[in-house]
């Protein structure tokens, strides 16, 4: 693929984006490049600025400073409809007085497309989303899943380069959410459009994303593939935010390649340090509950501890065990078939190469 002159390799570029509401700075100096055909998820808890960023990209919020480029065009001052984007909202935002067909064709009529072209595009979108039998119904007569499908269709007919999703599945019930998530992934595979997807649901983020941008306080904490985000969180915030049940943290000291907490010493053999020379300092170790091994497998791990089981939560597919490791409560994820009872003492094994080590002061990964 050859690059045309002046044409960017990126689908969406956000350069030094600032957004302030009065004195409140919501986004500050934000940079983000999104590749052609990429599925990027903006992930964060509420109030982190993820939806705000999406609205800026859509042109629904006027930015304070910086630039937004889409498909090599500076669209900073462009109207939402001129940016080549389609947007899907959490509340579906279907026009209640129009039929499904009316909803799908509204944007095309505004763009003054010829009638047969509108018909063609509506038919194609309806076919892709399997909503053909619903075309003459009003949104009030549709179920939640059908409504969201129509909302996706409204973005689809516009034949745009970039799809923006603002928590599209949050209003659906749990089962439907999983179904539609799968459909969305299939849709992305089929269309190969750039998609930017805002969610607070880490499962959606992990399953859908090519890359995830974890946001906090208007800044991107980490941008990486789901694998990187999960296995090598760049700082304590990301480590704590990703994973359910969340990571176990132990505060201690890092010294000469070993991590010590109270009287336990963990040699960090096999750990992939971010910087080759790591000085001694107060540190925090993070161990995911699912990376703690029990039973026969303990023999294969370099670090072994005896723990007292405090509480057992059977969840069907697996069992969550709360155990006392010294003065700390440690979460361990075991097999659903595992037979454990409170009060028992079990042996656990930890592999330091799968743990994460953070500087206590800066909270960054070591």
């Amino acid at each position: 693929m050859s690059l045309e002159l002046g044409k960017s390799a990126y689908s969406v570029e956000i350069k030094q984006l600032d957004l302030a509401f009065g004195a409140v700075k919501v986004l500050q100096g934000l940079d983000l490049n999104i590749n052609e055909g990429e599925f990027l998820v903006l992930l964060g808890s509420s109030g982190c600025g993820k939806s705000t960023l999406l609205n800026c990209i859509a042109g629904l919020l006027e930015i304070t400073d910086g630039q937004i480029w889409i498909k090599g065009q500076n669209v900073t001052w462009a109207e939402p409809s001129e940016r080549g984007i389609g947007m899907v909202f959490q509340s579906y935002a279907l026009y209640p007085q129009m039929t499904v067909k009316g909803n799908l064709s509204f944007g095309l009529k505004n763009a003054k497309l010829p009638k047969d072209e509108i018909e063609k595009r509506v038919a194609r979108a309806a076919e892709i989303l399997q909503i053909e039998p619903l075309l003459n119904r009003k949104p009030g007569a549709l179920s939640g899943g059908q409504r969201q499908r129509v909302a996706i269709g409204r973005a689809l007919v516009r034949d745009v380069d970039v799809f923006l999703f603002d928590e599209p599945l949050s209003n659906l019930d749990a089962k439907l959410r999983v179904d539609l998530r799968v459909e969305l992934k299939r849709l992305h595979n089929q269309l190969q459009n750039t998609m930017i997807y805002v969610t607070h649901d880490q499962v959606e983020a992990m399953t859908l994303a090519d890359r995830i941008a974890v946001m906090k306080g208007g800044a991107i904490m980490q941008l990486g593939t789901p694998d990187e985000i999960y296995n090598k969180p760049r700082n304590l915030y990301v480590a704590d935010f990703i994973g359910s049940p969340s990571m176990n943290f132990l505060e201690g000291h890092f010294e000469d390649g070993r991590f010590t907490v109270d009287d336990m010493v963990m040699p960090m053999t096999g750990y992939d340090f971010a910087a080759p020379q790591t000085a001694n300092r107060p540190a925090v170790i993070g161990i995911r509950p699912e990376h703690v091994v029990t039973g026969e497998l303990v023999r294969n791990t370099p670090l072994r501890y005896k723990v007292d089981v405090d509480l057992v939560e059977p969840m069907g597919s697996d069992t969550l065990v709360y155990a006392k490791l010294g003065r700390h409560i440690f979460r361990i994820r075991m097999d659903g078939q595992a037979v454990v009872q409170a009060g028992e003492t079990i042996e656990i094994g930890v592999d330091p190469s799968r743990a994460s080590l953070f500087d206590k002061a800066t909270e960054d990964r070591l």
Partner: protein
Amino acid sequence: MADIAMTGPRGPKPKKRFSRTNIFLYGTLIMISMYYLLPLYVMIVTSLKGMPEIRLGNVFGPPLEITYEPWVKAWSEACTGVNCDGLSRGFWNSVNILIPSVVLSIAIASVNGYALSNWKFKGSEVFFTILILGAFIPYQTMIYPIVIMLREIGLMGDLGGLVLVHSVFGMPILTLLFRNYFTSVPEELFKAARVDGAGFWRIYFQIMLPMALPIFVVAVILQVTGIWNDFLFGVIYTKPATYPMTVQLNNIVNSVQGVKEYNVNMAATLLTGLVPLVIYFLSGKLFVRGIAAGAVKG
């Protein structure tokens, strides 16, 4: 068997018809209804009596002999000043004032409300506050300044001038009404329309307007009753030939010459009150729904 085990209370609890709550509730309702309906009843029966019968003084008694003469007289023969063509002249004047005032004020206020809730601009909140402040200033303080303004633009005594005054005075409360209604419309709907390439007017006419029917009904009722029943502006800003119905009614009822024709006065008053009443009965259901729709978010 099951029915052996199930003794004692079963199923819905029986309700007492003449419980204290019911007696109190319906007693209050009946008394309040009487309070409002009795004068209306007196008006109706009096308007159907002839003057000799009224002089007998039996105010609450039904007419011994029903006559429609007073109604005819009130509509087409009663004298106000030099004109002796009854209320009919005032009725048509009122219609001519009412329709343009209602249409104009609602058209402007709905666009105001839409702009103030969806297209916020710098200072729009201040603008809105100032506008709402207008609803709290007594009309009487503005009467004379408006006289001067109307005189300067040459609309004093003209129906157009009165239409203008009614439209302006309806603005604060109507704008508030529409703004609150449009604020309750989900913001994402507006955003979706913008992404779909619709501008200010297209969103207003194609998205917002069809959703705002209930609040339009509320606005129409408020304006129709308010403007139709207005007396103060009507008497000040028009001249005898263009007096609205309420002013004419006053002139008929309060005329000091000749015999007081109570039956004609009652008929005239009922005729004047008929238009808001008809509007209310025609759209009562929509009115209640509109009030609720404006109040509940979502």
